[in-house]
């Protein structure tokens, strides 16, 4: 673009429209990649933990979720380094905060229940009503669906919103029907429907 100062009103408006549209396209390019990355990680770890839970020693393997979080964050940082620098905008910041809140709630819930599982906290102090089981998988699935739906609504992307509602509500009730490691297979299915598929759709849409 050259230093041209003889612009018509139409040309000026065209430059403004083109620049804003170009900026929007650049920012949404590969927006689905983090969803595919985190969704794939959840699938791999859910299946792995379900297998280890069943065959090698019970729910203690749930600590691997923390390993997944570290791998996920490290991978995302590496991907961000390889990508061309993108500007910060309000939409990206809001979506980042939605997922940060999701991460804080899930890690907090997971950490407290892990402490109970390791015997540091008593289950009675967490759920005083006898026989009551905290449906962690259902709660996390529901929260994932909400965060993902919010992302879809902010991006005005119907594919993300629809997939996320199905994954969040469907996963919530489905996880209640299963116990132990089998719940994690529900979690894997939720990750495919709520993260991987919408991520692929977004990447295809932004490539067009």
């Amino acid at each position, binding site marked *: *673009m050259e230093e041209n100062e003889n612009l018509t009103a139409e040309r000026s408006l065209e430059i403004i429209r083109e620049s804003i549209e170009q900026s929007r396209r650049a920012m949404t390019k590969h927006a689905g990649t983090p969803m595919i990355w985190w969704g794939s990680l959840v699938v791999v770890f859910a299946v792995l933990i379900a297998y280890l839970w069943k065959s090698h020693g019970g729910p203690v393997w749930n600590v691997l979720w923390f390993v997944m979080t570290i791998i996920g964050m490290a991978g995302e940082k590496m991907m961000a380094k390889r990508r061309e*620098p993108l500007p910060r905008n309000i939409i990206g910041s809001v979506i980042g905060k939605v997922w940060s809140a999701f991460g804080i709630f899930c890690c907090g819930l997971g950490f407290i229940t892990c402490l109970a599982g390791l015997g540091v906290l008593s289950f009675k102090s967490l759920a005083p009503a006898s026989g009551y089981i905290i449906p962690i998988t259902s709660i996390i699935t529901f929260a994932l669906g909400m965060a993902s739906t919010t992302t879809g609504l902010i991006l005005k992307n119907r594919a993300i919103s629809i997939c996320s509602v199905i994954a969040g509500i469907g996963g919530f009730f489905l996880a209640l029907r299963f116990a132990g490691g089998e719940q994690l297979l529900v979690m894997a299915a939720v990750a495919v429907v709520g993260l991987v598929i919408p991520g692929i759709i977004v990447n295809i849409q932004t490539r067009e």
Partner: protein
Amino acid sequence: MFQPLDPLLHSELRLAVMSLLVSVEEAEFPYIKEQTGATAGNLSVQLDKLSEAGYIAVEKTYKGKRPCTICRITPAGLKAFEDYVNALKSYLEISK
């Protein structure tokens, strides 16, 4: 009646830079260069002009060990951009 157009914004490259910056919180120099297709030298000169007018804030910092120039639009720049677009509208309405 035609409203006067801000001469600082009535330039292809400076207008493109301002249009990019209105939709983001901040943007790095390489991003602006890529989006506008301008040469680094020309872009630097135009950024300096916008910065001197108080339309954008330019922060020179480091990203790791590499120098990094970050640009963001100022409230004065946003107001100037709005006025420019309103002035353009008056030209288009009269020419209809």
